[in-house]
């Protein structure tokens, strides 16, 4: 840890609740402290190792011998795992994957406890469209996709499509179906909603001169036309203002969507990303969004599948702190520390795939900054995720419990019900509650965040849930909290179509790059795309011929 920084003041309960949930909510609770009676624990991502890297590593930390391996993959999130899966699929086995955490998967990880499975982060993917061939291949291998229909769009097995009811929203203590706060909406509200949807459908149906859709997932399949690039120059809020859409309900929907997908309020989200969220999910010619695929453990199912496919080559608990590029004759060196033994470990490879966040690159890769690259434009948002174990379900007024349950008056994103997709509608369950630090700099510093204890976070979670379920305290048996330090790339205006992002995906000598941040939006599909792309780059360098999965020609 860096020294010399004065200890920032710790927050009291009211300050914490005000910072995270707003003064209205904070005022509704008493002052003093409240220690939740449930059990639970707080987990942080390994910020200790991350900060160790940032603050400089002891030069004496060098291994005595180096392991020779064809390719070293740095980072075992979806990008790294997808790359490993892709290499293996081409029959190439000579690689290792070094992952800092004790289990791979990054923000797509899932968990299990007491017979329940639940997500710790990303928890669904929209059904991929025909052109996302690589992902369709993976999901077919996983037997999630049963077949392809005539137009190439996948047919997904019923049990993996999100079961109805999908969404509900709580407003003033009563639940309503859907995500849009329909109840009490005025004619003008509904007119603006219809206009907004029509605009998104218009973008979804539009093609650029080369026949590409304007927005597609992965975004590399979409257009880079001036028309979409221009959107990146303004915020989503400015874009709404331009159209005169001021309906509070529509604003709420957009605000929720931006916080949900990007962890940012609309005034800080690029309008490109804001429109992408809606338009990329609408198949051309169809009015609605693609259905979503989900599992009780969220995208943890994909993590487990990829990990099983390559598990022999995954090394967990290995914090990579140095990558020194090689040349035609010298191998590239990868230095890591085994977090369990604190012993140094080294690899020498022909290629390295850097599948960790770009913010790490300048600390890890020798000569990164000198090469003219600048990763400072890559900004990341923090998240809080809590898995709340319930002994029984709350009794709700109005629409029954759905998969996604949103509280209108809350700054959290609400919760998903882990047992929903298993079809279990009664008795104990786990609620996965999400909170993006959409305004983290404005409300609470990272340092203050790191000082908070489990009880503080559990208090925040319960205070928020009480807005919709006043009796929740009696039902909770356990609250596990995960603090994601740098969880999501932030699509701030100008970033997605800025030079830094487009430059970052290009190889640097024998070092290749992957990661969802290279797309500017945090989506499993983007991470998967870059993992496959980087693996195919390496296969091509190594002269291994294999049919490419990422087909950028538009379908």
């Amino acid at each position, binding site marked *: 840890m860096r020294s010399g920084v004065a200890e920032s003041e710790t927050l009291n309960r009211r300050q914490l609740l005000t910072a995270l949930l707003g003064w209205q909510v904070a005022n509704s609770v008493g002052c003093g402290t409240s220690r939740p009676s449930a059990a639970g624990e707080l987990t942080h991502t390994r910020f200790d190792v991350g900060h160790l890297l940032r603050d400089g590593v002891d030069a004496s930390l060098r291994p005595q011998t180096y392991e020779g391996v064809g390719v070293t993959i740095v980072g075992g999130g979806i990008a790294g795992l997808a790359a490993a899966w892709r290499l293996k699929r081409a029959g190439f086995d000579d690689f290792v994957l070094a992952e800092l955490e004790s289990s791979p998967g990054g923000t797509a990880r899932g968990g299990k406890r007491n017979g329940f499975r639940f997500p710790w982060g990303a928890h669904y993917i929209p059904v991929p469209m025909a052109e996302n061939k690589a992902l369709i291949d993976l999901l077919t291998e996983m037997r999630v996709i049963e077949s392809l229909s005539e137009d190439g769009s996948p047919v997904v097995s*019923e*049990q993996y*499509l*999100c*079961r*109805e*009811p999908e969404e509900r929203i709580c407003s*003033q*203590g*009563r639940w309503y179906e859907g995500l849009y706060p329909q109840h009490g909406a005025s004619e003008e509200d509904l007119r603006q909603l219809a206009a907004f949807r029509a605009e998104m459908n218009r973008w979804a149906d539009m093609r650029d001169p080369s026949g590409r859709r304007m927005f597609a997932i992965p975004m590399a399949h979409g257009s880079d036309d001036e028309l979409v690039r221009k959107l990146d120059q303004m915020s989503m809020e400015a874009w709404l203002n331009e159209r005169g859409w001021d309906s509070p309900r529509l604003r709420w929907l957009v605000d929720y969507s931006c916080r949900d997908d990007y962890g940012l309020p609309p005034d800080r989200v690029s309008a490109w990303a804001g429109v992408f969220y809606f338009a990329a999910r609408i198949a051309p010619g169809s009015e609605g969004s693609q*259905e979503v695929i989900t599992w009780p453990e969220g995208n943890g199912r994909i993590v487990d599948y990829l990990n099983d496919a390559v598990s022999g080559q995954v090394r967990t608990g290995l914090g990579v702190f140095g990558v020194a590029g090689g040349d035609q004759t010298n191998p590239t060196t990868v230095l890591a520390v085994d977090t369990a033994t604190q012993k140094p470990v080294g690899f020498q490879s022909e290629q390295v795939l850097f599948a960790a966040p770009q913010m790490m690159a300048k600390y890890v890769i020798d000569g990164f900054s000198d090469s003219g690259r600048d990763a400072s434009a890559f900004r990341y948002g923090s998240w809080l995720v809590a898995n709340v174990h319930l002994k*029984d379900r709350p009794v709700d*007024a109005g629409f*029954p419990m759905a998969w996604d349950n949103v509280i209108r008056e809350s700054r959290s994103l609400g919760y998903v019900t882990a047992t929903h997709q*298993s*079809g*279990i*509608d*009664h*008795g104990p369950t786990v609620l996965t509650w999400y909170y993006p630090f959409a305004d983290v700099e404005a409300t609470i510093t990272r340092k203050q965040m790191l000082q908070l204890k489990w009880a503080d976070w559990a208090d925040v979670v319960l205070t928020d849930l009480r807005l919709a379920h006043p009796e929740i305290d009696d039902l909770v048996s356990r609250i596990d909290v995960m603090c994601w330090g740098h969880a999501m790339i932030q699509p701030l205006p100008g970033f997605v179509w800025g030079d830094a992002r487009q430059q970052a995906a290009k190889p640097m000598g024998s070092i290749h790059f992957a990661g969802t941040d290279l797309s500017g939006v945090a989506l499993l599909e983007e991470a998967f795309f870059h993992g496959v792309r980087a693996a195919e780059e390496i296969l091509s360098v190594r002269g291994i011929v294999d049919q490419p999965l990422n087909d950028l020609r538009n379908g």
Partner: protein
Amino acid sequence: MASSSRLAFALLNRAPLFLLYLNVLAVATCGLIYELIAGTLASYLLGDSVTQFSLVIGVYLSALGVGAWFSQYLHKGLAKTFIEVELALALVGGLSAPLLFVSFAFVQWFQLVLFGTVFVIGTLVGLELPLLMRILKEHLDFSDLVSRVLTFDYIGALLASLLFPVLLVPYLGLMRTSLVFGVLNALVGLWGTYLLRPLLTSRGLTGLRGRAFLVVGLLVVGIIKADTLTTWTEEIILGKAVVHAKQTRFQRILVTNNRRGFQLYLNGHLQFNSVDEYRYHEALVHPVLLAAQQPKRVLVLGGGDGLAVREILKHDSVETVTLVDIDPGMTELATQFPLLRDLNQQALTDDKVTVVNTDAFVWVGQEHEPFDAVVIDFPDPGSYSVGKLYTTFFYRRLRQIITSDAVLSIQCTSPLVAAQSYWCILRTMEEAGFYVRPYCTSVPTFGVWGFALASQQPEIVVPQELGKLDQDLSFLNASMMANLFELPRDIQPIETEINQLNNQVLVRYYDEEWRGRE
């Protein structure tokens, strides 16, 4: 102690002064509790707690003013009036929660009753303190009086506001809290007749005490009977006597009784009437068991009332019956509740029968020795948690645990009232790989009711020979067996969507078709 206090001490039947303040404390606590009850109840029943609490507090506070203003017109017999006010307040406040609950069920202008009650309570509370202070002002120094009475008044308010959320609502509930504080209030009144004895005339004292005892008694009876009040409300709505009521984790089970028979309701939906249930259950069970040709292993999904099992056990070939019903409360009722136990002829305790209390959705996903025949007797698909049991996914899972020539029967709501729902269920089974044969019959309690047979074999033949069964049936006979499958002109197939987990169209069809018709 000031000399004037000593005077009061002597005057007031040698009662220590703190008893008087205790009186103020109790009065203040009761008043605020009534207000909190009204606010909470209104929030519960009407939602929008901010509005409800604002309005209740507003009406209450203004009524306090009205009461205080009105107190100037009272001159004679202040002590007696005070006690009368106490008793009236005990009665109105104590009964306020039951009154509001019941009136919500029956009165269209509920708000009128709500705010009327709050206003009356507020006015009575508003009268209390001025009266008490005027009674005591003769005997206490005025500044002393005002400061102490107000102090205890506010302490009472604090006490109420702490007790209410922490102890009262969680442990007593609204109904009992209201009644208990009514009793407390009445006891203060009764006690007043002793404490203020020197200020009361002998005339009417017995009557006053008698009234106080009456109010206390009435409210105590209310406390004892608080649970039956809910049941009573339901009885009035259904127009029948409720003989059993139980809220399980899954549903509210209600059995009513009238001269002609008894009825089972789940979550307010009629499941059967003992008068004509045999028509329904014979039609549900015998065609499938005959078509399955001497089935040995029979599965019943739903049907926790045991009535379908009663019919199944009439077939000698049957060796085991497995009944899967989510609610142990329901299967316990079927084995223990005398009326139902007699009606199902103790079917669920038969040696051949195994009862499993699990969600059938999960259970069909597990491994089981294959079944020869299946009877599906789920409630109608009125909710998503039941609708999932009518999906292609569910039927496909079911195919994994039956023999290749097993036959299924299923109850599928009224094809006359809910045609889309009915044909949606059949289309969904077909999509899942079953051949189906629709049929219907008439059950007076329900009207025309729809069923279907299903099998993985294209030909579903229902033998018309009843054999030994013939003498065991009350409804079906050999010639009717054939006619069951003759669809009338007004019940003919229509196109519908297929019910899947990810669309649950059936729940939407059902909701549209039955809304307002039950």
